């Protein structure tokens, strides 16, 4: 019997959409390993968020609330995961790969002396998984041979979880955290406010690279995105240059996206960028350079200057409505 514990992230009582991929993974592992799925939600609003995930067939949702969990700190969240894993006798602990779980899950793995697989893209059985290596140029099948196992899950590779079964009951879990004894103190957060959908879960993503020429030039990317109700992304080069916020970066070391439609504007398509978007269903590339590697993965390529082609495309889209 191998029970599964999945960490569901939430904000203000709502589960984050990207983290639902972790539930899908958990359903698959529980089914293949003959175990039960359990969920864990931490932080203020966790109880409300638990109601929102009650329809996914989990045996129980553990809820951890309290002042120590207001801002995410790994030293507070690690004992919360440990307590929930113990309560449900979990041999698999998982969560969608986000900046939080990439910080948290390896620490949990070390505490429980577990082997871990990052960015899992497919479940073979309860201990064997597929995951990308070398910037997605290789797909590895890995087996975790430790008793307790930990996985982070690539959001773009797992569909939304199936609904079904009796409503999941929430159970409050008391986790004592010595806030004064923690080595890290939260100082502050600078959020990039956006009304656009998050690129990791958006249906359409419009992305810009060096071809936009400047911070000002990136507006053309935003205009096409807003015409389509799309999320936005960027190549590493223009994040490094400071033209756009870092968290827009798509690639091996940034966000991994797989929308229905990915539109690359003025992006040459380095291997590291392709690693972050080549699972997209339809890829469009507009670039002045006919030799740009992005064209090797594009379903539809247009050799053109984005400064003239994009406004024309926006016009066509508007006319069609």
């Amino acid at each position: 019997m191998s029970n599964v514990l999945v960490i569901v992230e939430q904000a203000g009582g709502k589960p984050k959409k990207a983290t639902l991929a972790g539930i899908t993974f958990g359903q698959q592992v529980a089914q293949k390993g003959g175990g039960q799925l359990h969920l864990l939600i931490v932080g203020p609003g966790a109880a409300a968020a638990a109601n929102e995930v009650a329809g996914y067939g989990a045996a129980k949702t553990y809820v951890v609330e309290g002042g120590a969990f207001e801002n995410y700190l790994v030293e507070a969240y690690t004992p919360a995961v440990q307590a929930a894993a113990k309560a449900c006798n979990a041999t698999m602990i998982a969560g969608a790969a986000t900046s939080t779980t990439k910080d948290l899950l390896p620490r949990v793995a070390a505490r429980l002396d577990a082997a871990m697989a990052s960015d899992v893209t497919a479940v073979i059985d309860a201990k064997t998984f597929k995951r990308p290596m070398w910037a997605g140029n290789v797909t590895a099948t890995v087996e975790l041979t430790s008793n307790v196992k930990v996985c982070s899950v690539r959001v773009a590779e797992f569909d939304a979880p199936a609904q079904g079964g009796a409503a999941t009951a929430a159970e409050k879990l008391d986790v004592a955290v010595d806030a004064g004894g923690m080595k890290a103190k939260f100082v502050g957060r600078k959020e990039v406010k956006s009304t656009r959908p998050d690129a990791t879960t958006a249906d359409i993503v419009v992305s810009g690279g060096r071809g936009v020429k400047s911070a000002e030039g990136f507006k053309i990317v935003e205009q096409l995105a807003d015409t389509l109700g799309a999320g936005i992304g960027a190549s590493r080069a223009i994040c490094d240059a400071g033209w756009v916020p870092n968290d827009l970066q798509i690639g091996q070391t940034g966000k991994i996206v797989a929308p229905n439609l990915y539109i690359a504007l003025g992006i040459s398509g380095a291997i590291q960028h392709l690693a972050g978007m080549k699972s997209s269903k339809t890829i469009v590339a507009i670039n002045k350079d006919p030799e740009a590697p992005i064209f090797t993965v594009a379903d539809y390529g247009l050799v053109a200057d984005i400064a003239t082609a994009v406004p024309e495309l926006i016009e066509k889209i508007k006319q069609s409505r």
Partner: protein
Amino acid sequence: MKVLVTVKRVEDYEVKIKVKPDGSGIVTDQMKYVVNPFDEIAVEEALRVRDASGSGEVVVATIGVADAQQQLRTALAMGADRGVHVLADGAVDPMMAAKAFKKVIEAEKPDLVILGKQAVDDDQGQVGAMLAELLGWGQGTFASKEESLESDAEKSKQPALKIANGRCDVVREVDGGLETLSLAMPCIITTELRLNLPRYASLPGIMKAKKKPVQEMKLAELVQDASARVKVVKLEPPKERKAGIKVPDVATLFDKLHNEAKVI
């Protein structure tokens, strides 16, 4: 300030990696090896922290085959003071690496440990946080800074990590923005791409690096039960995308997207 920094020998990330036909590994004939790019950033930050503090040393540690000494020498040529080479021939998974580095750190007693956030071969990204847990230290993963890599702040070569009164303030890249943590030292830092632009090794630096001391030890001496529990069963190339088409103009592009792919 004594800073310990880790480097890993990885395949050149500019090279397209190919899988052997039997799936047992990757093709390594004529392969060029480099320092993991995130680790170069870690070395750069360690050097800046040492130099800003006015004293101390940078110790660079690696785990790997005998030839990984080349990557240690690269870090020494950049300006690190001495090296520690944990010799390992077989597969090393992230927990094994963390357990070995823990032993090295307990012997070296640095004030600060900086690692790359992930190695670009296995792309696991686990060792830093595992090491922090094993040591019971605080962790600042994905260290970055508010200023861009083309800013004056970067050109001044000042460390991005703010160290004062036994604490290290670190700006972290997180989904949706930046977050600042204050960590009691010693602590673990892992580097994001935008922490700094690493320097190149100078020719005098390369000459000096040849004489810098490197201590060697064996992985089995540091980690009991040294066998990987992340077992790579097989490797395969990813599914290739079908080659697409080039369209002559915006009108055709719109027509294809609207009527053929039906995505807009």
